[in-house]
């Protein structure tokens, strides 16, 4: 593999790690593992943990994909690998 494509792949893996960590934290973390602790905090009429499980996690998922699209388009551009 040429050095450029190697660097491209490495950066891609870095993005994946960061974004999937956020994915894990908002759903499995805030929505499941720490739901009871977060439920002590109120967000308007919502208990925060409950809100993450039924609303917040989904909003974050959508944002994550669009952030990934932006990051990767820029990365494709940088290494001149766009299709």
């Amino acid at each position, binding site marked *: *593999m040429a050095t450029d*494509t190697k660097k*491209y*792949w490495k950066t*891609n893996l870095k993005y*994946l790690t960061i*974004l*999937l960590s956020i*994915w894990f934290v908002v*759903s*499995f973390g805030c*929505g*499941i*593992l720490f*739901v*009871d602790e977060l*439920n002590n905090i109120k*967000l*308007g*009429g*919502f*208990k925060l943990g*409950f*809100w993450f*499980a*039924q*609303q917040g*996690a*989904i*909003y974050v*998922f*959508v944002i*994550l*994909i*669009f952030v*990934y*699209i932006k990051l*990767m*388009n820029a990365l*494709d551009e940088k290494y*001149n*690998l*766009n*299709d």
Partner: protein
Amino acid sequence: MTLQLWTWILVGITFALYIGIAIWSRASSTKEFYVAGGGISPLANGLATAADWMSAASFISMAGLISFNGYDGSVYLMGWTGGYVLLALLLAPYLRKFGKFTVPDFIGDRYYSNVARTVAVICALIVSFTYVAGQMRGVGLVFSRFLEVDINTGVIIGMIIVLFYAVLGGMKGITYTQVAQYCVLIFAFMVPAIFISIQMTGNPIPQLGFGSTDTNGIYLLDKLDGLHRELGFHEYTSGSKSTIDVFFITAALMVGTAGLPHVIVRFFTVKKVSDARKSAGWALLFIAILYTTAPAIALFSRTNLIETVSNKEYKTLPQWFSNWEKTGLIQFDDKNGDGKVQYVADASKNELKVDKDIMVLANPEIANLPNWVIALVAAGGLAAALSTAAGLLLVISSSVSHDLIKKMINPNISEKGELIAARLSAVVAVVVAGYFGIHPPDFVAATVALAFGLAAASFFPAIILGIFNKRMNKEGAIAGMVVGILLMLFYMTKFKFGWFGGGSKDNWWFGISPEGFGTVAMLVNFTISIIISKFTPAPPEEVQDLVENIRIPSGVGSASTH
């Protein structure tokens, strides 16, 4: 106008629309039949994916499930949306770059083995058939409840419509029909939700009404928690399932979503790798509109139901109660003979049984909305069921005509012959699906969860390792898939059907339910694949080149057979 007339008009118009689109966009080559010619725009593909994905279960049953399970229902919300993050980040762009027609195509080529291809075809067929039977049943149910025709007649009408546009249009036809179906179903879902949100909270946005106060200034969620405590139910905002089970079920649904062949194949229909990423983003956005509204509907309808019936005189209950009683979906049994409805958690004292599907279907009636809104819900439910059924049927027909006939039985088949084979297998698939819709086997309900577990236990690890682990070879992948599926089947049949000695909740391994076991089977698949690949020869040079090639977006060709 009467409700029935409204329903026939709206259902008639939408069906005419779907057929019109199918005639306009019929497929003339195998490439158009399998992947719509590979020229769908990301936005259109996002809409089509959303309709493809959201089935009768999402539209009709999910809000009801959440309504009865409260916090525990979150597994469906997070599980069925979180999978799209995995799809967009880990699968879609690379599979699009690979540029073939089907999931077994990828497995077969990446693992340079027809054994791997066959295993993948079998998994694809099992997953799709279990799923499609439920959709045809959903079509029949909507017909029978709203148009007062026999369920079986409803299934047959649905079969004819799907047959028409899936067989004629192939992927190209169903893509554009699905775009129309998304618009119908989301409109049908949102209109009653907005009406009810305004009625109950004064806020027209259901997602905000969800966290708002009622006319007395009490937060709805607090009020419902209070009602639940009073009646002995577990608190709405906290669950009754164990944390580990919620964790594993959510993971199994996420990974299963990312491994479902009818979802994956949608990403083969766009032009470029970047378009595959974009369409996953659009798809999740369109899905999220429904999925963030559903829990709000769940809260509204649960509160409405309890306030309307709990401790009320049976005789003074509104008209909708007896309407739905006739269908058997609401059952009242005055155990203590006081003429009032006691709706409580204690089974020996509870007098009311409510089917979960009612929450969406009867919601407009409960909230006293006009007839056209109720009719709209029927049209929306049909759109959701038909769009998913068509997507699944296409996977079945391409598995048979492309993966089995073209790739294994008769590689010399002509383009025209393959297209005929594809259409014929679609016809057979519709007939089989219709048969299961009319004579639903008992295991249908149980096997929808199995479909996710199977996809999680088989496809997902094989595809991920195929992309991210260059050293993964056919020995590892095949062993992983076979062990993963068998383990999943074993656990499901043991605890769902009582095979292999059966067992109750107390016997579950690590306290994980069969619905969540797909996650365990997936982990086992990953582990076995990696260990076995370490002790067996590396894949050939050209396969390793293939892996490097799919990792970069440039040089993408259109989807092709070779």
